[in-house]
């Protein structure tokens, strides 16, 4: 009975993992086939990889878009972690009457759909000369209610005794945050870092509205423009998708050790 149960369990897991891995396999196979073979549903490797790569680099400036995306995602992640973790920390540690009210207001902003903000936001940035700049993409995302909420929750698990001890030892509040809090909460930072990086890397609508020239475009915009065609070059698109997925996979694998810990809010 026991072996039957575990066989069933493994069978289920094998099927589930096959289902989730299939798109990746399909993507890699697709990158080696021509557009016609892909539309015909060919499921084996072909010899078109180099052609697809050359065609892709002719159609779009991939290195530039990749660099743009990477730059935006890295700056956003660093700034977002610093600012939002400080905010979350402050919301939990420092007491004041208005605290909960401000906090609730902040959480309410999570409910406003981006479509409603888009036009006013665009006007604000364009009127201040920030249209077609990467700063315009980074600025609205460096303090998000979700990450502040996340850090407030994890701060609850931060041992207050540690803080008291630091105060007795003569550290000021900033030193406590930088020297005690950040190192202790490493895994939370890793988890929030993954979320921030992925959100920024996949950001689409706002860059679309605010970026105007080919030179400033991010990977997501380039990917989208490749697929809009009378006869899409599916092979080249697959190559582009592989390039676009690499950083998120890399970041996730590098930090996954911390990710689960961080989401559970545990302290080392």
């Amino acid at each position, binding site marked *: 009975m026991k072996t039957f149960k575990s066989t069933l369990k493994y069978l289920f897991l094998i099927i589930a993992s096959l289902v989730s891995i299939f798109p990746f396999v399909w993507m890699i196979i697709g990158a080696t086939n021509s557009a016609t073979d892909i*539309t015909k549903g060919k499921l084996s490797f072909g010899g078109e990889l180099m052609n697809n790569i050359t065609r892709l680099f002719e159609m779009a400036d991939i290195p530039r878009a990749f660099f743009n995306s990477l*730059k935006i995602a890295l700056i956003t992640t*660093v700034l977002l972690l610093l600012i939002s973790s400080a905010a979350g920390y402050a919301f939990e540690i420092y007491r004041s009457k208005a605290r909960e009210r401000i906090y609730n207001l902040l959480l309410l902003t999570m409910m406003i759909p981006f479509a409603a903000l888009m036009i006013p936001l665009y006007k604000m940035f364009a009127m201040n000369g920030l249209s077609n700049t990467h700063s315009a993409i980074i600025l609205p995302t460096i303090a998000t209610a979700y990450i502040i909420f996340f850090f407030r929750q994890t701060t609850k698990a931060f041992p207050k005794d540690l803080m008291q001890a630091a105060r007795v030892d003569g550290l000021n509040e900033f030193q406590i945050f930088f020297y005690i809090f950040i190192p202790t909460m490493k895994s939370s930072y890793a988890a929030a870092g993954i979320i921030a990086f992925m959100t920024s890397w996949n950001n689409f609508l706002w860059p679309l509205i605010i970026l105007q020239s*080919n030179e400033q475009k991010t990977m997501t915009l380039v990917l989208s423009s490749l697929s809009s065609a*009378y*006869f899409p*070059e599916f092979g080249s698109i697959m190559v582009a998708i592989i390039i676009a997925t690499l950083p998120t996979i890399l970041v996730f694998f590098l930090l996954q050790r911390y990710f689960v810990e961080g989401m559970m809010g545990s302290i080392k």
Partner: protein
Amino acid sequence: MKKLLSLLLVMCLGITLAVGCGKSSPTSSNEDNNNSTSNEDNQDNNSTSNEDKQKITIWAWDPNFNIAIMNKAKDLYTANNSNVEIDIVDIAKSDLEQKLHTNLASGLTTDLPDIVLIEDYNAQKYLQAYPGSFEPLTNKINYDDFANYKVELMTVDGEMYGVPFDSGASGMYYRKDYLEEAGYTSDDLENITWDEYIAIAQDMYNKTGRKMLSTDPNDGGLMRIMLNTTNQWYFDAEGNVNVADNEAMKEAARIYSEICNADFTKITTGWSEWVGAINTGDVATITTGVWITGSVKAEESQSGLWRVAPTPRLNVEGAVNASNLGGSSWYVLSSSKSKDAAIDFLSKTYDQNTDFYQEILIDKGAVGSYIPSQSGSAYSAQDPFFDNQVVFGSFSQWMQKIPSINYGLYTYEADAAIMKYMFDVYSGKLSIDDALKKAEEQLLIQIQE
């Protein structure tokens, strides 16, 4: 812990430096389009000073088609006009539409391009929803030289906007060998009705077991082709919704539901499976816009086996064997700072230049709607892939017969409403009359007329 902190700070510093040095100042491009030429371009162009330099920004989609063709036009024009700099921005079609809406709705004109590509079905929506935003070109372009139906769809209150570009003139591509196997010659497929098409399909399926066509029941493209063989549309000439009591519409819905339920039809999902069905040889025909030619020819092993016949017509009065699916045109924005240069550019390339059209036809398979160009050599060439038929010459003739229709403001909204209820027609839950009535009600609520 110190290490982590210093690492963070160094990263922060490095990245801030990178932002500072990496990009040119954004403010200059907003304040003055004429001065925002990049350094590299200045070096190339010693003859003209920065001040006379006109910059034209163009938004378009499809790097292999529209963008590639626009690049060709750009090279042609800038060879004689070195004081004009043309920047073509590649944005996916749906993204471009969203961006254009946002920009126009915000009321700020700083980031709008000078020229924009708009799909024909959506032309009236932009022209009527944002009056004054697009430049009328009535006396600046020779509209008599363009296919009539293209001019009609860009006319508002007698003023014409835009420069007609590629045509979506449709035809019925068919596998000569498959149909011959079932006993049909090319003549049997010329100028037929959709009912005759269904009869041939059924007969071929019974005799050979081959399927006639592939279609996606979710997609209204084929139904729009049927409808456009008449002079009726989802909207009447005044732009009022005309779905429930539209005889041509009912007829198109009847034919389409018959096709979707027939055993000679291969049901597909999405674009790639639909195109895939012709490349694999699963189906004998595909009836759609001329832009599919490249995809049909992509399967080289089928060379010589294909031919093209005129689009089947609906069995209603006034219907012709010519129709259209898709196609788009260029529009000049009124807010453009280089308006005159933009108009001059379009008129010297897309109007008045027949050689240009020969080139884009040969290189990209683009059938323009500029009629004088179609007596050129590229249009009269025989194509061995299509059994030495003069394919583009035929399309050019059909193009001139396409009924002129006012597509109205909400073609895609109407399409979505109708296709939603078509499923109940396929399954027999609703009669065609009831389905169209429901679709019309939904559409009216949606567009709040």
